[in-house]
């Protein structure tokens, strides 16, 4: 793609043709009325040249639609706001070296999958020896001492552990997001930390499949990591952030 556009639209096979695919269910019996509703909805979403390419009954007065259309909306690429957690991405050895040089002592982290959330695989991928996709976990770093409390851990217990081991960073995993349970869970943790006067003494990191850097910031965390995160991402961030807070980096 040689051309650099400032204002973009989705692309099907021609630049800015606006091609978008939708699918959804409507609470209407399949038929011309439902098709018309699907068309109308697609138009309200800003599609032109709408084709309801498929519809079928789902039973009980519901019907399913697949739609293709051309989106009117333009995105101004230069005006996009997004949060990139700023830190230099380092590899395993580099991180250890960096910690030795810039911090001069081992870093301690405590982590858990909190609340009623029983998904350990995510937090284990980050913290346990084995790591993720061949990338070794925090436990394996010579300069990191990692405590992984597993899943279904109460926020209070995680904080108690952090106090006990004098953790530099707290790692929280949240996988289940139904009814936004993760939001209340995550906010609750920040609230207790603040109540305990601990918030500024730790680096607070959250991760999970529905976590984005933006959401993490919004909830009062120092960083957020989504799907596909590698342990080295987290290790790099924590090491850099500690150095930065010490004044060793800016």
């Amino acid at each position, binding site marked *: 793609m040689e051309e650099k556009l400032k204002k973009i639209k989705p692309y099907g096979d021609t630049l800015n043709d606006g091609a978008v695919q939708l699918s*959804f*269910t409507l609470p209407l019996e399949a038929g011309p009325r439902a098709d018309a509703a699907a068309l109308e909805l697609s138009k309200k979403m800003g599609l032109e040249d709408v084709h309801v390419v498929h519809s079928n009954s*789902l039973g*009980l007065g519901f019907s399913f639609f697949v739609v293709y259309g051309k989106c009117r909306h333009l995105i101004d690429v230069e005006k996009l706001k997004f949060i990139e957690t700023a830190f230099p991405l380092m590899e395993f050895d580099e991180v250890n070296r960096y910690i030795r040089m810039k911090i001069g002592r081992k870093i301690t982290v405590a982590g858990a999958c909190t609340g009623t959330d029983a998904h350990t695989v995510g937090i284990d991928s980050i913290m346990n020896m084995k790591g993720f996709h061949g990338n070794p976990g925090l436990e394996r770093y010579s300069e990191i001492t990692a405590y992984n409390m597993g899943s*279904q851990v109460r926020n209070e217990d995680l904080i108690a552990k952090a106090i006990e081991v004098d953790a530099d960073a707290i790692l929280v995993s949240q996988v289940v997001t*139904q009814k936004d*349970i993760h939001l209340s869970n995550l906010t609750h943790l920040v609230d207790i930390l603040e109540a305990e006067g601990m918030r500024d003494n730790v680096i607070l990191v959250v991760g999970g499949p529905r976590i984005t850097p933006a959401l993490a910031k919004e909830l009062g965390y120092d960083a957020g990591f989504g799907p596909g995160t590698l342990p080295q991402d987290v290790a790099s961030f924590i090491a850099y952030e500690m150095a930065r807070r010490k004044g060793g980096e800016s």
Partner: protein
Amino acid sequence: MKKLDLDDKKIEKARELAGKIVSPVQEFISSHTTVSVERAVLRLFGVDGVNRDEIPMPNVIVDNINNAGKLSKGAAWWLGKALISLDCTLPDIYEKLEDKKFDITSVNGASDEEVREFLDTQAGEVLDEITGKREKRKSLKEKLGEGKEPLLYVIVATGDIYGDVVQAQAAALQGADIIAVIRSTGQSLLDYVPYGATTEGYGGTYATQENFRIMRQALDRIGNEIGRYVRLVNYSSGLCMPEIAVMGAMEELDMLLNDAMYGILFRDINMKRTFIDQYFSRRIIAFAGLIINTGEDNYLTTSDAVEEAHTVLASQFINEQFALRAGLKPSQMGLGHAFEMDPLIENGFLMELAQAQMAREIFPEAPLKYMPPTKHKIGNIFFSHLLDGMFNLASVMSNQSIHLLGMMTEAIHTPFLQDRFLSIENAKYVMNNTRNLSDDIMFVKGGYIQERAQKVLDEAVRMLEEVEQTGVMKAIENKKFASVSRSPGGGKGLEGVVAKAKDYYNPFEEKLFQFFNCR
């Protein structure tokens, strides 16, 4: 058709080892009861409802007895004694229990003989009732007929039982054979069963007797409409395993997820507690003619499906022995396994097929529960849908029985109506289009598939040998299953374990024992 050229001696050996592994646990089980077993017994006697503080009556009564330090004799005993002594009904007892000072074990009057006779008569009636329900189900199934195997199993999980009904009925219309109502997140850790209809659950709907009833009726209604029997499933693993088994028997469910190992490993439930609970729950399930679903498939969500395939098989052997000892027939054993290998592995499908076919050949009568890919699902719904298609193929190619449908949105949310539709459509297409492929192909002798299956069997035997050495509890501690470590003293619910007194009495245990011994 046997296709894998497996060594029958090794299979026999594995069964023997599993038997030896289970025996000591079984001894421990026999000498203990739990608060949940006792609550289940009370439920069998008809105890239900909640008190003014919304605490379920089975809990109120068992706690009352336990607080008096007398649970080791069995809750039934005290309830029976109180009922005769006071010559009253259950509601009268409930009323008395609203007074926190009332101690049910202090009621006196009835002789031991009288109590025993009363309990035995009552228990007989209850079991007759359950037998009646079992027969009713059987004839309804015969009348309506069922879908072809692999039976298509989908979940509903709106958190609102009435929403669940809509989803479930639509799924049945679309072709689903089995409906599971997912429980609210974390219910398995509650040491009581919530009461009444749920309209707001988290990521699921509570397993309550009322919810069971509502869904059973809804499925029978739609089943009659479409002329196909629709099975109902719920979850009994967790701290209330036996109680939910009783509820399932009463409300005529067809299957229950039921596995102590699952609770131990994935819910951190104390192993002693849940082994005891499992035993009594399975006795009930066996009698009521339900099918259990075990959870070995879950191991592959935390450990690698290629490396740790044998742990699933080893665990199936162990679970089979536990099940046999609780009176379950092979035809009631929905042993779990799963299609969970990394899709990017060359020839991964051959390994999956080997595993599935192996389970089929080793447990020929069991209605195996085959789980879809979940762990390697990502937000790319198109790829995910395809992965499910290959899973559907593996299932029909290895003649599985209970087939959980994968959802293209597995990595995103609990299924939308349209997700379920597309998934059922997927399975119907693939299975119909390849219906007799399994009858039409053989595996090359000494080929990739045969070798893989043989290797996994070898490894499973080796693992069982090790587990037999250390005992299953120690093996769990040593992370042999699902790479998770749990200790016999850790986890939730140990406080609910009670050693049976010499004069412990549970009329059902005895009756069920008789039932199975004379079968």
